[in-house]
């Protein structure tokens, strides 16, 4: 009569009473199967306890840094307790690029857009794999539910991504004159490349809703599009700051001369 799984686990954790522990020890002395179980579990716990943390992907810092730089533009946000308000309180040294320039009203959109996109990415992570797992265990009712659920979740994810995209597009389109025509054209062309990819992925998902590569490629497409739009907005902002810096110098130069 083997000890229960619970008893073996308690044994490993040292939470059995003395009498029960003795029982298990005696059983283990004569049972290779249970000994193997205990050894395996101990090995798993040892391995997970000793495992060094895995490094985050290389791109993680670049994305984060971009989001932070966007936040830093946002010195006009009222009531913020973070870095931005401290900057305004006068950090003294270090002239930050753009932090003392007059910023146009849409700049707060940048931080909002960055935050929105990240929130979207987190909140709308649907889990197609597990749904498909359910289908495979052969419970038909659950499978039907699962398929429906995937559809719904995917549509919700799409909607959220598309909102983020629209917000960024609005900024990019309204301020595109900051960019020279060739660059603007290159960016538009590449956004079209991404849109093409998105529409191919979408068609694939419609044709084969359970296909993980199809779903994955659709989500990848949205993220890539958002990334490019964010970069476009950041670029526009840089150009604008440069323009304003130049204009401010000219204006201050003129003022000094009393004209």
């Amino acid at each position, binding site marked *: 009569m083997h000890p229960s799984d619970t008893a073996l*686990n308690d044994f490993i954790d040292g939470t059995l009473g003395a009498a029960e522990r003795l029982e298990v020890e005696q059983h283990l002395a004569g049972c290779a199967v249970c000994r193997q179980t205990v050894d395996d579990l101990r090995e798993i716990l040892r391995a997970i306890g000793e495992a060094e943390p895995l490094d985050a992907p290389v791109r993680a810092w670049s*994305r*984060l840094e971009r989001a932070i730089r966007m936040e830093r533009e946002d010195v006009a946000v009222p009531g913020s307790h973070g870095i931005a308000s*401290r900057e305004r309180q006068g950090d003294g040294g270090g002239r930050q690029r753009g932090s003392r320039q007059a910023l146009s009203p849409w700049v707060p959109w940048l931080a909002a857009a960055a935050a929105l996109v*990240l929130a979207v990415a987190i909140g709308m992570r649907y*889990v197609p794999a597990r749904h498909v797992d359910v289908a495979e265990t052969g419970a038909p009712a659950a499978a039907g539910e699962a398929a429906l659920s995937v559809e719904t979740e995917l549509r919700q994810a799409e909607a959220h991504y598309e909102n983020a995209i629209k917000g960024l597009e609005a900024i990019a389109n309204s301020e595109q004159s900051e960019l020279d025509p060739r660059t603007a054209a290159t960016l538009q062309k590449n956004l079209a490349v991404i849109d093409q990819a998105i529409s191919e992925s979408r068609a694939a998902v419609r044709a084969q809703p359970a296909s993980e590569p199809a779903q994955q490629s659709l989500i990848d497409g949205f993220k890539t599009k958002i990334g490019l739009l964010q970069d476009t907005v950041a670029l526009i902002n840089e150009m604008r700051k440069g323009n304003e810096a130049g204009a401010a110098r000219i204006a201050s130069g003129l003022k000094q001369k009393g004209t």
Partner: protein
Amino acid sequence: MTVDLVARIQSGDVDAFETLYRQHSARIYTLASRMAGSAEDGEDLLQEIFLQAYRKVGSFKGDSALGTWLYRLALNHCLDFVRSRQAKMNKLTETLDAETSIEPTARRETPIARLDLERAVERLPEGCREAFVLHDVEGFDHKEVADLLGIAEGTSKSQVFKARLKLRGFLRGK
């Protein structure tokens, strides 16, 4: 050095913040990936956590180490994520528990390969995975796990035990 780092971060020094990131990103990424059940989700959570840390560092009072403060922020964030996803997934959790086809990840005997282990943890079903990570990896006791996950202490224990056995199944083909 840390005191200086905190001061620099609070005054907006992005390089200093990057130092903090470099010091802690691996630990937090690993925690987030395991709690969320996938490296991709872990990466997104990592972003959110550090962005939140950046915004909130102004309110860090220095009554604990910066790393501890960051860890707590990360843990809370992971728990929020797990809870909100749990709410969506409730209907399906029970069916998942009945999963019978388990393909083993490795047939080798000890030692367990690091990546096999991570993958096996990722494959654990919701519920028992978080309990396992919090108890067996992060070192919280069952009472603490129960508080963090909003479950009963007995449930924490049974979920952790279930996770261990499933891991064994994945890794040993038994």
